[in-house]
């Protein structure tokens, strides 16, 4: 036998207890995050000072010295040193509804209210997923019917007069509703074992990704009609929308393909071993997992699709941004463009943030439910 080891270990036999004060609470946070060294403390102090000065100027311009109400074509704004928010009160109808006939703009108001209300409802878990999706389809179709009119005694309004936030919503809704299924088909097709299907999908994806959105929209709206037979007239809005859908789908297809590749091979094998056919394996086993993996990246594309609606203004279709630009042409208000654009900026910011918060909540839901079962 060898001698007793010089290494040692003692059994501890202690009940669990809370961590010491140094690793929790406000002081610990300050020390570990803001002042962990003299240099870090100096930077915290300097950045804090710069931030405070900036915030003070912003506060003064945007609130303390701002003009909220300026009758008589904005007379009060011309002597004020702060922001002229009166321009919003004056122009919000044009910004929100574009060139849509003034007396009919309540329709646009109803559409905006409907989208926001259904968006809020969808963010809760009151309805099952299919119920939420069915609701979105309903909201989308009703929006188009309401904006177009011609039914139930509503005055017909041509798509060339559609504008503002309702148009933004409809372009966006159509892009996602048409683009996402197309993206899934392209992604699945790109992995197909049938060469013709695979090459068609690769050609579509790579072709579209190699072209700027602007060029695609110009092609769809202005050049495509030259090739179509003269008796086949497709509305400009629809043509541009198809361009948007294909553009969205080409990018989202690559995102979905990434998700398909991230699903372990064993999942498909296990489904095969159960005797499931290709369709059932895709729909029931592979795609649900692939899509759950790519939710963050998909919401990236979805939010971008929302912002890409602004491209429609170059085709003479006035989304919110285009309508704002048009509204600010008024010589009495032209100098308050900054305020107008800040308003639209906030509008986009709030809507996009809501979407990304919604995406994050889906992601959390997936994480808590689907932990990897290696």
């Amino acid at each position, binding site marked *: 036998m060898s001698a007793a080891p010089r290494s040692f270990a003692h059994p501890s036999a202690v009940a669990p207890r809370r961590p010491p004060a140094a690793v929790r609470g406000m002081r610990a946070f300050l020390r570990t995050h803001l002042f962990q060294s003299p240099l870090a403390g100096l930077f915290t102090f300097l950045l804090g000072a710069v931030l405070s000065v900036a915030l003070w100027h912003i506060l003064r311009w945007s609130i303390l010295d701002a003009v909220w109400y300026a009758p008589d074509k904005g007379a009060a704004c011309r002597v004020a040193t702060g922001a002229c928010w009166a321009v919003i009160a004056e122009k919000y109808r044009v910004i929100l509804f574009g060139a849509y006939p003034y007396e009919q703009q309540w329709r646009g108001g109803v559409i905006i209210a409907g989208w926001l209300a259904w968006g809020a409802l969808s963010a809760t878990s009151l309805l099952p997923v299919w119920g939420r999706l069915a609701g979105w389809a309903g909201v989308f179709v009703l929006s188009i019917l309401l904006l177009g009119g011609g039914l139930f005694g509503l005055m017909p309004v041509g798509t060339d007069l559609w504008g503002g936030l309702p148009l933004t919503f409809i372009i966006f809704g159509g892009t996602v509703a048409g683009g996402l299924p197309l993206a899934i088909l392209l992604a699945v097709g790109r992995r197909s074992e049938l060469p013709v299907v695979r090459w068609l999908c690769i050609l579509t994806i790579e072709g579209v990704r190699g072209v700027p959105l602007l060029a695609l929209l110009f092609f769809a709206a202005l050049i495509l009609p030259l090739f179509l037979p003269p008796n086949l007239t497709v509305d400009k809005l629809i043509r541009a929308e198809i361009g948007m859908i294909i553009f969205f789908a080409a990018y989202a297809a690559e995102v979905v393909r990434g998700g398909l590749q991230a699903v*372990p091979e*064993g*999942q498909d*094998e*296990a*489904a*095969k*071993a*159960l*005797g*499931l*056919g290709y369709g*059932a394996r895709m729909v*029931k*086993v592979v795609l*649900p*997992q692939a899509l*759950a993996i790519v939710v963050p990246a998909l919401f990236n594309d979805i939010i971008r699709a929302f912002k890409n609606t602004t491209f429609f203004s170059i085709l003479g279709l006035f989304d919110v941004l285009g309508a704002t630009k048009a509204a600010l042409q008024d010589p009495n208000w032209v100098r308050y463009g900054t305020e107008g654009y800040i308003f639209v900026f906030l509008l986009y910011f709030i809507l996009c943030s809501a979407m990304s918060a919604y995406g994050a909540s889906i992601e959390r839901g997936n994480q808590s*439910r*689907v*932990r*990897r*079962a*290696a």
Partner: protein
Amino acid sequence: MTATRDLVVEMSALSKWYGQHHVLRDVTLGLARGEKIVLCGPSGSGKSTLIRCINGLEPFHQGDLVVSGTHLDGTPASLAAVRRTAGMVFQSFNLFPHLSVLENLTLGAIYAKGEPERDAIARAHSLLARVQLTSQAQKYPGQLSGGQRQRVAIARALMLEPEVMLFDEPTSALDPEMVHEVLDVMEELARGGQSMIVVTHEMGFARKVADLVVFMDQGEIVEAAPPEQFFQAPSTARAKAFLGQISHAT
């Protein structure tokens, strides 16, 4: 001759290549109904490839394979027929993480066989009881231990009411303390007369359960014998060397 011996799996001169590499060399074996074959051999010997050929997860290039009367010729119809009668259990479980335990079991029955949902759920519950997971039906695979996951995977394969069960190293991914609960379930199945082919390094299991131990090395069957004979008096040097290596490990 097939009828008299009642073979569930009959494989003759099966060959497969990965590129130039001849990974299965004229493998010939038959599994009689109700019997159990344990396949063993060093890693890379082709045993997993062989078992995966049986339900068509791997294609083979030469030879004949008949699984419960179906000639597996690579056509979709033959693949579908074979997969309906062969249950497969994988080393890494391959449970569907986005589905509950119950849904993992019923998915194949409902979408491959077209069984009414209510019947599938009833059968699933009785199989979960059989693998002693009655209370876990609503959980997700990620909430279970490794041993529980593998038992769910066994129950999922049993939902096919398979004529043959194929186990591809079912305990190799498990922590040691969970191995026995899976082996217990497999032994219980074996006692119930289930035909099975098991790839495993658990020689205790082979001794207890196998009717025939098949030792493979470099893509060929080197030796096949009943367990007493194989473990006490292996006739080839390669089998002796292999047994020497794994007995040191246990």
